[in-house]
């Protein structure tokens, strides 16, 4: 198994957020809010089998969603941000740092 780290970063303001990995809900939280001074709201980590993984980010109250296909072979870090009307995702093989 390999770690998939999903960080909710910029742009969240009292939002309901659901995260699904391969169709399984791994995160559901209300009132997710970015702390602007560090650009970070929340995070979750799941263990996944190496290979193709489908990450879904859903904000049902805003009718926003995004599906991100990933190919996992090592610990993977995904940063999710809201940029206007879009969900932006950043994939990294290094942990994110906040300041």
């Amino acid at each position, binding site marked *: 198994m390999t770690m998939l780290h999903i960080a909710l970063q910029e*742009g969240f303001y009292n939002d309901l957020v659901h995260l699904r990995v391969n169709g399984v809900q791994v995160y559901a939280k209300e009132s997710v809010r970015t702390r602007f*001074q560090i650009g970070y709201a929340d995070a979750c980590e799941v263990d996944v089998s190496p290979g193709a993984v489908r990450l879904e980010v859903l904000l049902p109250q805003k009718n926003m969603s995004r599906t991100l296909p990933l190919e996992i072979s090592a610990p993977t870090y995904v940063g999710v941000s809201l940029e206007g009307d879009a969900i932006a995702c950043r994939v990294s093989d290094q*942990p994110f*740092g906040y300041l």
Partner: protein
Amino acid sequence: MSEHDPIQEQVGAEAGAEIVLPAQPLPIVLPYPFIPPASGLYETRQFIFQPIPLPTPVPIEPQPIPISRRQPWSFYTEELRLDVDGRYPQMVASGAVHGALVSSAHWIANLQATGASSWTGAIWYKDGSVGYTNVAISVNRSWYASQRTATVTFSGGGQPDRVRTFQFKSPYYHAVEFEFDCAQGEAATTQINTCAHPNRPASMPCETLSIQNVYQRAGFDVTISSAGSVVPLAGAGANARWSDQEMHDAMQTYWSRFAAKSQWALWAFFASLHEQGTSLGGIMFDDIGANHRQGTAIFNDSFIANAPAGDANPTAWVNRMIFWTACHEIGHCFNLAHSWQKQHPPSWGTPWIPLANEPEARSFMNYPYNVSGGQTAFFANFEYRFSDGELLFMRHAPGRFVQMGNADWFDQHGFQEAAVSLSPPLRLEIRANRERPVFEFMEPVTLELKLTNVCSEPQLVDERLLSSSEALVVIVKKDGKPARQYVPYAQYCWSADRRALLPGESMYDSLFISAGRNGWDLAEPGNYTVQVALRLEQEDIVSNELRLRVTPPRAYDEEYLAQDLFSDDVGRIIAFEGSRFFERGNDVLREVAAKLSDRRVALHASLALGGGLAFDHKQLVEDPKEPRKHLGIKVEPPKVDEARELLDAALIAQAPQAVESFGHVSFRRRVDEFSAWLAEQGAEEQAFQTQDALLSTMSARQVGGRPILPRVLADIEATRDAYKPGQRRKRSRK
């Protein structure tokens, strides 16, 4: 110099005299041809002399008293920040007026040079009483601080020119103190050698650069507190990692300057790790309590201590990164956002001016590893500075936005660009007509507005100007929370009906602001600030800031009932003074009136319930028995006896409490309506008694030792007498 000075007129000053500030220490003299810089802080102070009271009765004609015999009552300070040379000049001037007896005002202008020591430009930012549109500035340069002056001519805006001469005070725009404390076993990295790491701009001067230097170059007179402390690790709890609350507690204990107030001072704490772990390099943790942005932290063992693999000088890289992080976190204490957060949705808060994101900025407020090319590209041309937009904010924004402990982190600011005049013809006052602006928990808050013509000419105003939700902008701010604009449930469209407001004359209205379309903005216990702007065709009239307090609940039953009372239905019933549609809300009000009969909210509940029953109630209903006419108007008759009982309980039975809770204007209007309604029901005698109760209540009423105006009492007396038997006249509901 023009003799016309709107600021002096505004405060009623009788005379003015400039203070000569003490001479500053001599600057370092540089050899010719260097010329002294012009940038820096200039200041002038103006005395306000106490008005000379006239004896009553006047025995003889009062004689003028020489200025020298008068005692200064107060003074106001007017500042100029000139930013045209020196480090990172922004070609900007800004000014501010402060004083206990004057409305604060702030302006910013972009400048162009018109000579070696003169500039001119347009004012593009106004906050408070600023009517002028342009400035022209000239300076007297000198190596002697006491000989340095700046003369500013304000012009435009349809006003006579205003000329002010300022004395040089400091080459810096603000003074600020930093205190660096460390957790046990940790060190503070407060300076670096700029050439220690090979990845740097080719033109970078090699020097020892301190955090103090960085902020001095940003325009601040930085002093470092000598009271640095070592904070015991016990403060971090059993896990030895620091939570925001633990750091806040440590700040209160170990920061020598800690105070629950705004001040130009901050606490920077160097520790090992935050409880979030190695992913958090530093945080301005102080968005706790009423005074934000006083404390910040840097975590020496977080990811910022890990140089990239293969780096040419890992030790220098780590030192630089910790130093950079300290400057970054301290920047948040100055209310600077990240470089990519300058534009954001309105719900996050209103930026002080429209700003553009700067995702590639080589600024302390950007993340080095997020720019194109990553941290290597960032540091290759990073010059240890803030961006121009950030410098503009720190140097020239109204001080309350920047000063630590003042405006909340990411706070929004209500009247940042009101189009106001230095000498407005009208004065708007908002007040709670009671001895202390303290409201019981659940008591709906009704305030009073007073608009006075303070100029020498009659002013044409709309009769219903103070009732117009389009003209009024009401800001409610609970301490420690963002300001919110009160949005009433309804907007009324009145026919224009102008009246002349004579010099010295006032008009009044009441303002219910507890609940509106935003919900119950003013309900939770705590301290609030309320301010109103009146949007007129040519300018805005901004009121005083009213501070008021809502007391905590008295007991559990109040807390329990409050959950139902603070609903949209009840808010609408109270705002519209009755409804038969919101039955659930009426049930809540009935329960409140019965269970909390000794509390003021019961008066408001009875009034709303009575108001809903006093008249015919028309309702649009569906009639399933009539297929050709699905909808119809159903009229329910009034419930006169029940309404009379409720209205009497609300207004007359406890009239001294009612007049204070509803406010003078609203109480009188409602009693007048009640009397008229009683007369319509044929109860002339009771209408007379009701007006008589109004008269005796208002006659006995004093606020701050001031009784009700005699002409108001005379009006009430005349209204009362019109209900006397034999003097019956046709009345209708207003």
